[in-house]
């Protein structure tokens, strides 16, 4: 914190309470990290925790968050491999595990392919440092985004993945974040650099071993050099009491391909900001599913920026809200002047399972080029009566028919997960959540 000579206001700003422990961070051995922290703190002077009066947060009430206080994580929980076994994936052996934001070497295992870097910042060697440091924090996500700035103010360690030129990493890399402590705030960070012509699959996975409240504020940065190919699966299964405030910035170079599937099922309030910057001829597929019930709130804000010509974007976002849950989707598509021959399709489909569930969906197109194809659509509805009848005419009870159709609605997104073990795991979870025995 900057030294204060002026008299403080009596009411302490919530943001200040979250920053209390920041000065106790030891300086990093990486100059870049220290610079980023200082810059973030400077931005935070100008920022506040958002309220409903902020345009980007007008549907998302953070009152439940600001009523609670969170401690920093002071010590690492010791977990055994058996503790994390339920979350490991059979066909994936490259794994970086963070327990309450702290890297757990005994639970992690690194890539064996030469030149591929799968490590964490604290252990990173000087030989890769230059390529990594240049990309860390380089994607303009901190300037007006309070949670990203908060994450950066606390930056000390990060999952780091670097795939060298033309290397196709066949086996996925699993970055697993486990929450074991209640009442803490942690700020996980991850950076993936896919060099020119390389190919990699990343699984970004948030799970909890307890069901209490905590604040998790992750930032993911993904850089695709020209012709790189990244498949990104993001799964959020935090505790039902948790607050998950996430930011991801993707920079897709010329003719690169970024495919992502993001699933949000946990947390009492979750917010995922994804911004994708598309270079010339770059393609992205951004699919998402929020499956919530009780009084959960899940908010997804995406921005796909067609900065150059010939970019292709496809987005399918689905929300399923039951009980009195609230889903929010804001899908911004920006087509800049000169981004000719842009081809963009966005679809937001929402299923309400009960009278008290509620969805706010807002496609937002800003188009400044004139030779483009941009299609978008949004639907909000209940289960289709004809489909329910068809299933009942085959002997399925009303409840089973509805659960099966809900599972089917979610299935379209889960089917898009390219890692078989993860797809199967999530299908099982959705089946449990919708109460069907298949």
């Amino acid at each position, binding site marked *: 914190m900057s030294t204060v000579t002026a008299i403080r206001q009596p009411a302490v700003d919530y943001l200040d309470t979250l920053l209390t422990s920041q000065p106790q961070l030891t300086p990093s051995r990486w100059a870049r990290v220290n610079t980023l922290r200082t810059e973030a703190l400077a931005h935070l002077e100008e920022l506040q925790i958002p309220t409903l009066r902020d345009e980007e947060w007008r549907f998302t009430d953070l009152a439940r968050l600001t009523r609670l206080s969170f401690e920093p994580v002071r010590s690492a929980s010791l977990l055994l491999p058996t503790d994390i076994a339920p979350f490991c994936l059979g066909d994936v052996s490259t794994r970086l595990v963070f327990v309450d934001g702290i890297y757990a070497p005994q639970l992690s295992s690194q890539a064996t392919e030469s030149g591929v870097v799968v490590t964490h910042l604290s252990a990173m060697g000087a030989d890769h440092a230059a390529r990594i440091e240049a990309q860390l924090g380089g994607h303009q996500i901190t300037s007006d985004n309070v949670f990203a700035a908060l994450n950066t103010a606390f930056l000390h360690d990060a999952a780091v993945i670097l795939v060298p030129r033309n290397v196709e990493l066949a086996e996925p890399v699993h970055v697993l974040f486990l929450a074991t402590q209640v009442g803490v705030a942690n700020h996980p960070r991850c950076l993936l650099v896919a060099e020119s012509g390389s190919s990699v699959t990343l699984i970004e996975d948030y799970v909890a071993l307890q069901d209490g409240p905590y604040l998790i504020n992750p930032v993911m940065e993904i850089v695709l050099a020209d012709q790189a190919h990244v498949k990104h699966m993001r799964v959020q299964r935090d505790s039902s009491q948790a607050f998950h405030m996430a930011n991801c910035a993707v920079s897709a170079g010329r003719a690169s391909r970024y495919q992502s599937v993001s699933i949000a099922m946990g947390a009492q309030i979750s917010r995922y900001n994804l911004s994708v910057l598309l270079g010339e001829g770059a393609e992205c597929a951004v699919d998402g599913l929020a499956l919530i019930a009780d009084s959960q709130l899940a908010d997804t804000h995406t921005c796909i920026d067609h900065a150059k010509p010939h970019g292709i974007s496809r987005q399918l976002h689905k929300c399923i809200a039951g009980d009195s849950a609230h889903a929010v989707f804001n899908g911004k598509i920006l087509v800049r002047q000169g981004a000719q021959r842009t081809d963009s399709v966005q679809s937001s489909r929402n299923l309400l399972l009960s009278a008290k569930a509620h969805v706010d969906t807002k496609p937002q197109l800003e188009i400044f080029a004139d030779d483009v194809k941009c299609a978008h659509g949004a639907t909000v509805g209940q289960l289709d*009566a*004809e*489909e329910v*009848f*068809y*299933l*009942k*005419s*085959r*002997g*399925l*009870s*009303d409840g*089973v*028919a509805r659960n*099966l*159709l809900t*599972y*089917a*609605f*979610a*299935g*379209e997104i889960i*089917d898009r997960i390219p890692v078989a073990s993860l797809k199967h795991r999530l299908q099982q979870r959705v089946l449990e959540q919708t109460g069907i025995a*298949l």
Partner: protein
Amino acid sequence: MINPNSPVLLEVRGLCASVNGIEILKGLDLSVRRGEVHAIMGPNGSGKSTFAKVLAGHTAYEVTAGSVLFEGKNLFALAPEERARAGVFLAFQYPIEIPGVANSQFLRLSYNTLQAQRGKEELDPLEFDDFVREKMKLLDMNPDFLDRSVNEGFSGGEKKRNEILQMALLEPGLAILDETDSGLDIDALRVVSQGVNQLITPDNAIVLVTHYQRLLNYIVPDFVHVLDAGRIIKTGDKALALELEERGYDWLSTPHQSAGETIAAGVSA
């Protein structure tokens, strides 16, 4: 197969039904015994599909008068799923697509639900897979259809085959086939018909709702009924279907002499 000693399976008396406040069925009577194949034909708008849907229990249709007894019991007292479990099966004219649910999952779930109802053994996924593949051979269906979503991207013929596959798995007491022949080419029609024919037993019964006579060359009916303006106005055997094919439906609505009588009268005058 007609057997006058066979018990009555379905007894429809004076059935009146409407949709969106418009009366479609205006006093339909029909009696179906076990082992019989009945065809219901009629012009567009006569109420054929309405009848099929009312029997299955579709909530868009309101029964305003009349009764339907299935196996001696009031069918309207049962919800759609209860009718299915009691052995009433409707092969849809436009089968519904269910993206995200694999055909194999759907078929297994339906099969096991009925098995449980009948106090019989349910099958696990592997056992069911063997079982359903055997049934699919009868219909010349590619096993690839098991992994695809229910009816999604299926051609018209493939959807109808999927309906008959369900019929083969669920072994209903009463199968109502709603315009099963619509949208089928000759080859598909032949395969589907063969499939249905193999499923007919002395204990079950089939009601074919059809617009065209063509299907009845392959699935030979014991009775042909003509439905017009919500009532059955004529009942005959398969010869009636051929006559309708040649003369259309108009001659039934007005009390005309047959064509042969008119000419004879003209010649003798």
